[in-house]
């Protein structure tokens, strides 16, 4: 059973850095795990914590949020900083509600980091695979 589990992972990637990074991984034919479904958002600061909770509630096993590197890569100057604060607040919420905080991950991926993007996705997939299915799915 355990080795049959293939996690479903949802990725919110920012338009300017991380989505371009994912694109680079694709055009460079870098192989990475196919468990990730990508949603492009204009900025990681656009990712409302509601999105993450709704994704988890709907049976996604892990959520990746990726944006531009601090301090100064953000196209909108401070979107990534807001994303980072929200991410850490969200982790506190997940702790209190008994959901493993490892299911949500924030990463900085620039447009030139196709390799890093592939590495992050592979690592995260392995991590979620080890955690097992989302406990909310059964409830």
């Amino acid at each position, binding site marked *: 059973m355990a080795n049959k589990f293939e996690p479903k992972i949802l990725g919110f990637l920012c338009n300017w850095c991380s989505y371009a990074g994912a694109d680079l991984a694709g055009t460079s034919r870098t192989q990475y795990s196919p468990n990730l479904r990508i949603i492009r958002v204009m900025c990681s600061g656009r990712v409302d*914590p509601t999105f993450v909770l709704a994704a988890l*509630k709907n049976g996604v096993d892990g959520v990746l949020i990726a944006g531009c590197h601090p301090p100064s890569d953000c196209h909108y100057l401070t979107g990534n900083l807001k994303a980072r604060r929200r991410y850490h607040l969200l982790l*506190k919420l997940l702790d209190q509600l008994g959901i493993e905080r490892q299911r949500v991950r924030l990463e900085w991926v620039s447009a030139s980091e196709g390799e890093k993007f592939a590495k992050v996705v592979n690592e995260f997939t392995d991590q979620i695979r080890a955690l097992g299915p989302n406990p909310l799915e059964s409830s």
Partner: protein
Amino acid sequence: MSIVDLAEKLTDVFNAVEVVFWPTAFDQKLKEFIQLPDGSVDLGFYHGSIANEENKEIAELLRKKTKTIIAFGACACHGGVPGLANLTTTKELFATVYKETPSTENPDFTEPLSETKVDGYSLHLPKKFDTVQCLHDCVDVDYYLPGCPPEVPLVEKAIEAILTGKLPRKGETLAPNRILCDECPRKREEKKISKIYRLQQIIPDQEKCLLDQGIICLGPSTRMGCGAKCIEANMPCRGCMGPTSKTLDQGAKMIASLGSVLGLEGEELMSEDEVRTMVDQVKDLVGTFYMFTLPASILKRKTMTQK
């Protein structure tokens, strides 16, 4: 009940309606209510969350007897403060209340049972559910009137709408659909806040936005309509009106709002640990951001581990 707060207006209400069952105000028996034909009552107010078998039974009975049901108050609308019991289970809750608190002396660990035998008689208490629910999780609800307690002007308006037959679409909340900040009289400077104060640590300025002063105020994620009474008393909003219809999850929205204003100069160079320390100033996040709405939130409760 806050319907009584209508004071002299109550007489107008009583001139227009006949009250068939109101256990907190009149001496009417449940037996009589059960005998009424189904669907014969025009309007029912239900207050309280669905926390045990009895709550559920009464809610279902009310649904059967009445044409229109209004979820009345924060508990019926969003689960209310009792909804924070969803951070635990009945077993853990009873252990805390009947065993572990320092002031409890209960050497035999007596705790409420749903059934017990005394002198050959079988006695029953309603069984408490592990998960507190909102009224709409249990029965079909026609309208919502939130607030803890619902404010008199809103109750007045609702009753007027009922009596004149001018109720909105089914499923609506009988309060304005905008956030509290829209009716807040304080000045907002859109400042960044770096330190979060708890209420006992600071006397807030009467004129300035409480969030700007580093006090967690749920205004940005809470529906208006209460007249900002807490704010007027120099207390932050705790969110008893629940979110607007545009917000799925009051606490998550509050994380987004607080995430926008929390922050220090030079934050862009901060390490993850430093950001964590900044964010750790928020104590009891669920208890603060979901004080009245945990059962109505996306996740509804703490995950129950299957052990």
